[in-house]
């Protein structure tokens, strides 16, 4: 799960990770009153969307007076913010973070992520703060310092010191950075994060080490340990169809094509998308209905796929292993009877009792196009488009 910067900073604050003073605002008036409370000479107005590159897109501005806070808040709230991560369609800004301006002496990078190759967490630091870390990693990998963390003992102070000295910090800055890193690691572990990124991490003129920006993602598998995180989810940042699908416990991701697909299993679902493309079509979605594929899941799957106006044809690809195909076929027929479908539907069922299943589909008077192999299914569905 992704959360906003202001939410990440609130969490970090609870773990004693230094962050600037500030709060979220949903209206211009709220923004102004927060700025007045802060009472600093410089106030930062930051658009809150789930995407990076906000500064470059014009979503982060400095205000030197209350009038300017009002003016910039009016400008940014409601704007369509386009960044390299939002895609060309952009994202409407509905929330702001109003924060005190900081005296920035240095901009650094700090991140904690799971290193899948090592099966360990890794804490990464770099002197190249404020820029895209992927770029630094690709162009100047030697500028990223890494310490791998033994899960049994956690991040140790000597590792944090090594990074702090490696970043060229001096005097009191070193101790501040070590404290920062240990607190960040604790926040990461206790919230079951999958990513914590502080970019930039700043050193102020008086040697404090502070998170100027903060990005945290949580591991969905650990939801059951963090019931309160549900409140942090922002449905405005998600595709409405995907939100709808999640209510049905369906794993759906909307894409730009016109061939809707319904598949059991994530790997087979991706492969089905791939073969549609290879056959000359464009997949409209990823949809994994899970191992079962019963009447309810197929019906809900149809509803979700049909809510996407771009869909011109549907491909159902189910590998019935433990679940028998004839039962899946009955489910498909029953579901198609309850949901009005005016589009061609290609069905490919493979596995136990596949032949009986195909007979059922053919005799159903429902105009299903029955396919045998994966290739056959993709070709048939693409053919319906022409």
């Amino acid at each position, binding site marked *: 799960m992704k959360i906003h910067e202001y939410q990440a900073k609130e969490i970090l604050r609870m773990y004693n990770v230094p962050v600037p003073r500030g709060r979220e605002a949903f209206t211009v008036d709220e923004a102004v009153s927060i700025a007045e409370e802060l009472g600093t000479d410089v106030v930062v107005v930051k658009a809150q969307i789930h995407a990076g590159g906000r500064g470059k897109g014009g979503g982060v501005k400095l205000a030197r007076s209350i009038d300017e806070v009002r003016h910039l808040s009016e400008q940014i709230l409601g704007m369509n913010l386009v960044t390299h991560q939002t895609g060309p369609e952009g994202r409407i800004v509905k929330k702001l973070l109003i924060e005190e301006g900081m005296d920035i002496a240095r901009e650094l990078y700090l991140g904690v992520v799971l290193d899948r190759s090592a099966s*360990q967490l890794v804490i990464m630091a770099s002197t190249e703060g404020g820029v895209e870390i992927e770029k630094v990693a690709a162009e100047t990998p030697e500028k990223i310092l890494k310490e791998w963390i033994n899960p049994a003992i956690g991040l140790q102070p000597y590792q944090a010191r090594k990074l702090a000295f490696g970043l060229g910090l001096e005097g009191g800055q070193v101790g501040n950075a070590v404290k920062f890193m240990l607190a960040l690691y604790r926040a990461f572990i206790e919230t079951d994060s999958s990513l914590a990124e502080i970019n930039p991490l700043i050193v102020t003129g008086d040697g404090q080490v502070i998170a100027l920006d903060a990005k945290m993602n949580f591991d969905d*598998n650990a939801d059951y340990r963090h019931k309160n995180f549900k409140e942090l989810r922002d449905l405005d940042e998600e595709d409405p169809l995907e939100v709808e699908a999640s209510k049905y416990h369906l794993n759906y991701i909307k894409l730009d094509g016109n061939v809707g697909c319904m598949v059991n299993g*994530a790997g087979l679902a*991706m492969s089905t*998308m*791939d073969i549609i493309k290879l056959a000359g079509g464009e997949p409209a979605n990823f949809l994994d209905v899970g*191992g079962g594929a019963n009447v309810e899941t197929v019906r809900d799957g149809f509803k979700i796929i049909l809510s996407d106006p771009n869909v011109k044809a549907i491909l159902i690809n189910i590998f019935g292993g433990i679940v028998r195909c004839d039962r899946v076929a009955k489910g498909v027929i029953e579901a198609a009877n309850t949901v009005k479908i005016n589009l061609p539907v290609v069905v490919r069922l493979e596995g136990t009792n596949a032949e009986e299943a195909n007979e059922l589909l053919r005799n159903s008077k429902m105009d299903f196009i029955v396919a045998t192999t994966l290739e056959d299914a993709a070709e048939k569905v693409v053919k319906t488009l022409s």
Partner: protein
Amino acid sequence: MSILIDENTKVLVQGITGSEGSFHTAQIIEYGTKVVAGVTPGKGGQKFQDQIPIYDTVADAVKETGATASTIFVPPPFAADAILESASAGIKVIVCITEGIPALDMLNVYQFVKDKGVHLIGPNCPGVISPEKSKMGIMPGFIHKKGNVGVISRSGTLTYEAVGQLTGRGIGQSTCIGIGGDPVIGTRFIDALTLFKDDPQTDVVVIIGEIGGTAEEEAATWIQENFSKPVVSFIAGQTAPPGRRMGHAGAIISGGKGTASEKMKVLSEAGIHVCKSPADIGKTVEMVLS
């Protein structure tokens, strides 16, 4: 021969009395797997299907039955603990089917089982099958056939699709391993390849990867240096958008890394037969074998 499990492997099932566990254990027994014990804390002394003894702890089950392998059908909050319990009790092959174990739990587990020299398969996987010998998992047994092709896959139903293509062409399998779709897994491509390398029954290996991580790239490098048997590969997710988790917790293109095209490129450069289409896996293996 086969790897990891065969007709003599004594298997226990953790979570044997749960709905998933009991359903699949029945299928596993029907396939011919030597299931010697079940474990459900608090249900020790009972019997599964009136014949297989259930124990409160894995240690008891191992002591009484000599089980050396465990299949885990325990819900996510308790699954990491179940793996640790098996590893501590001396089990050597652990297959964890459970989907949804928190990644941080798995980091601890990974370190622990590695230190014990245990083969952990999964989690979030369909399991392992040595066709016509033994099955520890949820895959449909009947699509498999005994033979000389090893299969290693991050996926479930896509593996069945590939196996179906092989069996349909009369090509059998030595062992099929679903290594799982999570970011932290016990056995990776290289670990499984190392086992296939020494298995005289395996002549060709199929690797089914997907977007996310760099396990396929690491396997490609390893194969080039260490593995002389032919390898056929397919990577799912050529059309997957970046930044989106495609079902499996580990299937995500992040920071421009883990794309299907990059993986396919690296695998091809290592001399691996890469199929562009998932429909060509069986065909390609047949070509390589002839």
